[in-house]
C-alpha cells in the first residue's frame, strides 16, 4: 500500500497542476457559457501563448512571470480579433460552423508552429527552475507553487470581473438571454468578442505560470485541451465554480492515477472519465440539466 509520504507529495503535485488546468478550463467555460460554442482552438491558443512566453524569454530575456503584462493583453487582443474577424463571420447562425471553424484554426496554428519551430520540445532555464520548498514530507518545485497561487489569483480575478463589473453584467446578460440583452442596448457582438478575448487571456496567464515548470512543442495544446474539455464537462458547461473544482480534481486524479497505473494509462483514466461523464451526466457533476 502506498504510504502518506508518497501520496502526499503526489496530492500536492496534482493540486498545483490542477490549478493551471482550472485556469485553462475557466477560459473555455466562459466562452462556452456566453457564446454556447466549444472553442476547439483552445489548445492551439495555449500553444501560441506558450511559444510567446518562450520567445520573450529566449530572445529578450524577459522572465516568464514578468511577461504576464505582455502575454495576457496580447492573447486578449488575439481572441477579440479572432472572434470578431473570423469566428463570428463564419458562424452563419449555426453552432456546427463555429465548431468547424475553431477546428480549422487549431489545425492551422498547430501546423504553422510545426513548420516554424519543428517538432522539438523546448524548455526554458530560469534561476528558480530547480528551486524547491519543503511542505511536510514533500518537496515542491517553486515554479509549481507559484503556478498554483497565480492560477488561483487569476481565477479569483476572472470571477470578480464577471460578477462585479459592468462588463461582467453584460456578459452574464448575453449568456442568459441574447435577444433581451440586445434590446437593452448591449452590443452583443462586442460582448462575444470580449468573452472570447478574456477566455484566451486566461490562457496567456496559464502559459506564463506553466512554462517555467513545463515545456512547449507544437502538439502541447492537444493534451491540455482534452483535459480542459473533461474539466468543463465534469464541472458543468458554463459553471465557474465547477471548472475550478473540476480542475483541481482532475489534477489530483491524474497525479495519483499516474502514480498507481503509470503515465500513459493514467491518461486513459482521464479520457475514460470524460466519456463516462458525457454519456451519463452531460450536465456535469455540479451543473443543472440544460
Amino acid at each position: 500500500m502506498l504510504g502518506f509520504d508518497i501520496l502526499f507529495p503526489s496530492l500536492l503535485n496534482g493540486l498545483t497542476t490542477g490549478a493551471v488546468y482550472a485556469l485553462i478550463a475557466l477560459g473555455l467555460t466562459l466562452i462556452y457559457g456566453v457564446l454556447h460554442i466549444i472553442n476547439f482552438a483552445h489548445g492551439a491558443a495555449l500553444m501560441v501563448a506558450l511559444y510567446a512566453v518562450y520567445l520573450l524569454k529566449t530572445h529578450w530575456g524577459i522572465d516568464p512571470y514578468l511577461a504576464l503584462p505582455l502575454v495576457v493583453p496580447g492573447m486578449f487582443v488575439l481572441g477579440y480579433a479572432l472572434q470578431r474577424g473570423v469566428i463570428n463571420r463564419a458562424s452563419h447562425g449555426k453552432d456546427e460552423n463555429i465548431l468547424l471553424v475553431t477546428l480549422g484554426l487549431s489545425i492551422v496554428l498547430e501546423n504553422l508552429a510545426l513548420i516554424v519551430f519543428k517538432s522539438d520540445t523546448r524548455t526554458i532555464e530560469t534561476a528558480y527552475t530547480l528551486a524547491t520548498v519543503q511542505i511536510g514530507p514533500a518537496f515542491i518545485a517553486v515554479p509549481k507553487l507559484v503556478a498554483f497561487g497565480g492560477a488561483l489569483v487569476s481565477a479569483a480575478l476572472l470571477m470578480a470581473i464577471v460578477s462585479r463589473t459592468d462588463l461582467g453584467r453584460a456578459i452574464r446578460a448575453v449568456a442568459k438571454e441574447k435577444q433581451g440583452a440586445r434590446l437593452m442596448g448591449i452590443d452583443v457582438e462586442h460582448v462575444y468578442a470580449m468573452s472570447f478575448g478574456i477566455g484566451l487571456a486566461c490562457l496567456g496567464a496559464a502559459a506564463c505560470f506553466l512554462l517555467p515548470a513545463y515545456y512547449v512543442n507544437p502538439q502541447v495544446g492537444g493534451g491540455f485541451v482534452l483535459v480542459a474539455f473533461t474539466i468543463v464537462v465534469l464541472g458543468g458547461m458554463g459553471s465557474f465554480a465547477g471548472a475550478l473544482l473540476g480542475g483541481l480534481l482532475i489534477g489530483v486524479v491524474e497525479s495519483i492515477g499516474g502514480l498507481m497505473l503509470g503515465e500513459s494509462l493514467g491518461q486513459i483514466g482521464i479520457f475514460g472519465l470524460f466519456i463516462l461523464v458525457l454519456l451519463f451526466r452531460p450536465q456535469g457533476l455540479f451543473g443543472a440539466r440544460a
Partner: protein
Amino acid sequence: MKDMIRIVLFAVVVLLATAWLESGVWLTFIMMTLYATLLAQAWNMLGGFGGQFSFGHALFFGTGAYVQAIAQLQGGFNPWLALCAAVLVSAGVGAAVGALTFRYGLKGSYFALVTLAFAEVFRIVAVSVGFTGGGVGLMLPLSESAANMQFASRKGYITLVLGFVLAALAVTAWLRRSRFGAQLQAVRDNEDAARALGVDPWRTKLGAITLSGAFMGAAGAFYLQVFQYIDPAIAFGPQVSVEALVGAIVGGMGTLWGPVLGALVLHLLAELTRNLFGALPGINLVIYGAVLVLIVMFLPRGMAGLLDRWKRS
C-alpha cells in the same frame, strides 16, 4: 438510375486515365485522391447525411488498419480475408460507439468531442499493449502478388481503391433515394419532427455510423496494404480524421459528388504547395485547415453548393 450511370462513367474515366498514364507521380496522385475520396465519402455518410459531426473518424480507420495487419501477421489470414475482417470489425466498432453515444442522446459538439476522445483512447491503448506492436507499430512483410493484395504497380492499388470508392458512391446514391436515407436526412434536419413521424432516430443514426465505420475500415486496410506499415499515431491520430472531415465539407456535405470534388481539390492544392514550398512537414494540414475556415466562412454548402448556384443562374 441517373446516379448509377454517372458512377459507371466516373469509373470508366478513372480506369482510362490509369491505363493511359505511365508517370508514377500521376498514378500516385490518382491513388491518393481516390483514397481521400473514400475517407471523405465515409465521413459524409454520417456527417453529411446524418448531421453527426465526428472529429475522431480515425477511430474506424485505425481499427481497420490494425485488424488488417494483425489478422495477417498473427492470424495467418490471407489479406482478402483479412479485409473482410477489417471491414466487419470497424463496422462493429462504429455500431458500438454509435449505440453508446446515440443511446444517451449525444449530438452536436458533444458527439464531436466524444468521438475524438474515443480515438485518443484507442491510440493510447495501441501504444500501451503488446499485440499492436506498441509505439513502434506493425510492419507487413513485402510479397508482391494479387493474391497477397500487394501490387507491383500503382495500377493494381488504383483498381482496388476504385472498387471501394464505387461501393461508397453506390451506398451514398442509395442514401439519397432510399427510405432509410430519407429517414436519416429527416433525423438530421429535425430529430423531433422525424420521431413524431414514426422514425426511430437511434436506429437510423446507428445504421449510418455502422456504414461509415465499415468504409473507414476499408480505407484503413487499404492504407496498410499500400504502405505496409501502421503505427498508433498514423492509425488513430488527428490527420486522418481531419482529412475525412475537410474533404466532405469542402466538397459539400450530404451530396453524392461533393466528397469526390473535395478530395480532388484538396489534393491538387497539396500538390501545388508541395511544388511551391517543398516538403515542409505540416504544410498540407495548414492548407487543409485554412481551406476549411474559408469554406465555412464563404461557402457553407461547399463546392457542390457553388456548382448548384452556378447551374441555376
